């Protein structure tokens, strides 16, 4: 029997002290080698532009056109990082989770350098840098910022850009031509929609205008109000929701719902109306062109029957918000502000690639970055049927699209009202017969006035 003192037997066995000693030495070795490896690997190229030194992190949504994310993650960000010797980290999350994430980052004063959301968030003005420098830099290269982006990201009271908008997304009506053709109508005016809705529902294809606490419903219903001459605020940022036009609009939409929609519109998230359309059931929704791109990509049987038109004309005309107002901002606590500013400026200056990668979804906020003329030319190359259907996007963008908060700016009070989904809530109350139109308007007016008073006291409007 071998003794434990026998050296041949002890080989490869350690007592506790020896084990700790060796583990400690190993950990130190790995640590030193690991830290050195980083420099050795990157070599002299690491941080050659010292003023941009460090990593750059950004968080954005999972784009409704996945090809855009592929381009951003695999082409633009790595190439830009290589050129500027900055390690760029891009995180994507579902768009509905962005507000909670922003709130958490603000509370912790920590997170990503750059944050993206689908609508202006002026309520964070005190937590972000002034983006004027980025705007000026881009204007110097490609020309003036577009009206929509300016009014969505600039606070005239504090003279500060609280966000930097790289893009906005026209919001057309997407409709099934085959189904509408079957009843001999088209969604050219809101009156046509109201008359067609019961017939469409009768043939098993209701229309789908959301009245839920989500972005698409918010945009569509605010736009609907504008077509009826009702605006949440005026150009001087005074609340103007309480008027006869709002009451009329509420009654009108309630009628469309009661005769031509189903109650699922009250429970949608931003992809609710898309799924409604893709299921083959929906005959009309308000959505950006992701609603036509996805059926094209997936080869859905009705892809060629999806038409896109400008928002239907109402008694006050034809005017809508954009579907998405792409807003980036750099937190005050961002670790790499210089890198963040340059990243955003460069992104916009070279926006042609972004526009094409998004399959015409993202329109540049600075029209000079890729002009309407160039866009029309690019769009004409699209081979999806009906041919030329995307040509109408430039018309929608130029003539029928305005900023959130129109005719004023997208200020903090409007932002809070918008993020609380008060407009869809007002509509839903009437459509579900929980309130009369007048009562719903009165209630919304009271609540919105409270919000405006608060922000006025804070000196933001």
């Amino acid at each position: 029997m071998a003794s434990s003192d026998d050296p041949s037997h002890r080989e490869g066995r350690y007592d506790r002290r020896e084990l700790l000693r060796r583990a400690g030495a190993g950990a130190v070795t790995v640590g030193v080698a690991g830290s050195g490896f980083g420099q050795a690997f990157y070599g002299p190229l690491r941080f050659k532009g010292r003023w941009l030194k460090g990593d750059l992190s950004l968080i954005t949504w999972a784009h409704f056109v996945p090809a855009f994310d592929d381009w951003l993650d695999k082409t633009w960000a790595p190439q830009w990082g290589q050129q500027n010797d900055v390690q760029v980290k891009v995180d994507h999350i579902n768009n509905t989770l962005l507000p909670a994430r922003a709130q958490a980052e603000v509370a912790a004063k920590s997170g990503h350098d750059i944050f993206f959301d689908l609508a202006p968030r002026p309520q964070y003005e005190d937590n972000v840098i002034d983006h004027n420098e980025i705007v000026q830099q881009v204007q110097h290269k490609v020309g003036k910022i577009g009206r929509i982006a300016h009014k969505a990201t600039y606070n005239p009271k504090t003279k500060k850009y609280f966000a930097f908008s790289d893009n906005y997304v026209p919001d057309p009506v997407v409709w099934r031509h085959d189904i509408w053709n079957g009843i001999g109508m088209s969604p050219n005016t809101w009156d046509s929609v109201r008359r067609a809705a019961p017939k469409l529902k009768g043939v098993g294809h209701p229309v789908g205008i959301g009245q839920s606490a989500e972005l698409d419903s918010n945009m569509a219903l605010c736009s609907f109000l504008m077509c009826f001459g009702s605006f949440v605020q005026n150009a001087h940022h005074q609340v103007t929701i309480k008027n006869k036009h709002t009451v009329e609009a509420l009654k009108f939409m309630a009628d469309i719902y009661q005769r031509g929609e189903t109650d699922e519109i009250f429970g949608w998230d931003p992809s609710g109306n898309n799924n409604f359309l893709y299921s083959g059931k929906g005959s009309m929704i308000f959505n950006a062109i992701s609603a036509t791109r996805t059926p094209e990509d997936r080869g859905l049987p009705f892809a060629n029957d999806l038409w896109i038109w400008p928002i239907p004309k109402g008694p006050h005309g034809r005017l809508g918000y954009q579907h998405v107002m792409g807003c980036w901002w750099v937190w005050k606590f961002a670790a790499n502000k210089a890198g963040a500013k340059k990243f955003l400026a460069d992104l916009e200056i070279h926006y042609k690639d972004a526009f094409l990668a998004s399959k015409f979804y993202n329109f540049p906020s600075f029209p000079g970055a890729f002009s309407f003329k160039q866009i029309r030319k690019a769009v004409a190359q699209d081979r999806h049927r009906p041919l030329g259907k995307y040509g109408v996007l430039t018309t929608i963008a130029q003539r029928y699209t305005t900023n959130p908060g129109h005719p004023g700016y997208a200020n903090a009070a409007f932002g809070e009202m918008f993020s609380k989904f008060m407009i869809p809530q007002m509509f839903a109350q009437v459509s579900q017969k929980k309130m009369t139109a007048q009562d719903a308007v009165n209630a919304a007016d009271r609540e919105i006035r409270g919000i405006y008073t608060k922000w006025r006291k804070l000196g933001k409007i």
Partner: protein
Amino acid sequence: MKEKGLSYLIVGPFAIVLAFPFYVMVITAFKDQTEFYNPAINPYWFGKNSPTFANASFLFHHTPYLTWLKNTCIVGLCVVAITLVLAVPAGYALARLAGRVGQSLGVGIFLTYLIPPTLLFIPFFAVIKQAHLTDSIWSLVLVYPSFTVPFSTWLLMGFFKTIPQELEDAARVDGASRLKTLVRVVFPISIPGILTVVIFSFSLVVNEFVYAFTFISPSAHKMVSTGVYTDLIRGDLPDWGAIMVAALIPSIPLALLYNTFLDRFIAGFTGGAFR
């Protein structure tokens, strides 16, 4: 026989209703993508292009799903271990040592479990930042016990109360220390309660969303619950097939675990109910 038939008649419809979502999950997991949006195809059965492993293949080859599973397992095991280390002695102490004070403390501890994560995730995020644990699964190992320990302590407290004091007294008379009594007498007959804590804690870790989403952004560090929701909704369209495969896989071991230890699990939960 008649009685048995009546039982089946009552239980049968419940079983069908409860099993139906799992049935849909299985069917959808192996269904061809093109059949999801074709109203002509029965949504509760396969079309001509199904069944297919394409959804599973996409999940395993084009997403970091295996990493999410690994992260979930690591966090789950760590949280279960921490929970047991803290909740077992705490539950025992509250049951045996503190009398009426213990009762009140027990209720107090349970009440902390009722504070919803939606109120806590922002302050916790600040703590995680201070600890330099953002974007790390260790942030979850730190935070999850905040809701598993209170509930488990409360659960075990009730369970320990069902164990007759006389058993421990007998062991003490025979010369066993309190620790030895615990290890040799109390713990072996507390297995149903401890098992319940293990299953409960692990299930909570697998299901939790708010903290996992707030503390961790990079795809490679996500848990199953957040990875599925954030990375498998491509564009404006949920990838139903891949989502269902992703949901099916972790649900199988959990279902097996629950069914294997069903009797003990019930005993664990109801242990303190009749005291």
